[in-house]
């Protein structure tokens, strides 16, 4: 396998999309080729860097609560919240009379 052939499959290997056969052939090439090996190392590191640095966790607990509340509202139909409000107003209005 030439360097050109080995580098053609670079991204497929890094993205874990290459076939077993390709993986083995490229592994063999890399054992003897420092240049290709360092390029592969580099692309692997680069992908890992992007993933690690862009994945800092956020607090999503409030968002989760909002979603569950909205689902509850959806389930408590018939009548949107507007009609519930209207019904409630009518009820208080009658009581006041």
């Amino acid at each position: 396998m030439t360097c050109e052939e080995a580098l053609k499959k670079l991204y497929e290997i890094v993205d874990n999309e290459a076939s077993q056969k390709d993986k083995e052939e490229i592994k063999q090439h890399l054992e003897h080729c420092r240049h290709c090996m360092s390029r592969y190392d580099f692309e692997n590191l680069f992908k890992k860097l992007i993933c690690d640095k862009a994945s800092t966790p956020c607090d999503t607990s409030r968002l989760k609560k909002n979603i569950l509340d909205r689902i509850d509202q959806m389930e408590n139909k018939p009548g949107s919240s507007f009609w519930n409000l209207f019904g409630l107003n009518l009820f208080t209005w009658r009581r006041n009379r």
Partner: protein
Amino acid sequence: MSDRKSGEIEKKQRFEAEALIHLDALHRTALRMTKNEGDADDLVQETYLKAYRFWDKFEEGSNCRAWLFKIMTNLFINNYRAKTRSPQVVDLQDIDDDFLFGQLSALGPADNPEQHFFAKVFDDDVKGAIDELPDDFKIVVVLSFLEGFSYQEIADITDLQIGTVKSRLHRGRKLLQKSLWQYALKNGFIKEPA
């Protein structure tokens, strides 16, 4: 308790266990897509409400995470992208495949410039570089790099041909590398080779 009520509770519990566990992943991707917290929260919330509405259509045992990302990607493309859409012309002619590798190698092997570079890049630089990508590239890059979806899964999520996924990912990579190189020069932890 009525049958209807207990059915609702069961549905909600299943939804929480199978769909809401992916909240952090969806939120992380939504942040990169919309570039701001408010829109990201809205996008994720809309995604989950839509998923809940169509929960009966979701086949048990199939890939819930990919299904949620498909809903979110569609919502983003149809509702959010329109707001900020600008002509997305990108010239990649002058960027080689090994652009960043080449630049760093040229700095000389003595002080291990690659390790130096990777250690110095800030989280915000990486997020900024992703945010600056044209949406078409950004979507596939985020789905692949951050979420670890396969080419086929990304093709299913985005309704693109697998070849298009690959080429966008390839071009997205090049743009990211160029952009991070420019951050490094700007922040002064890499000096432009003479």
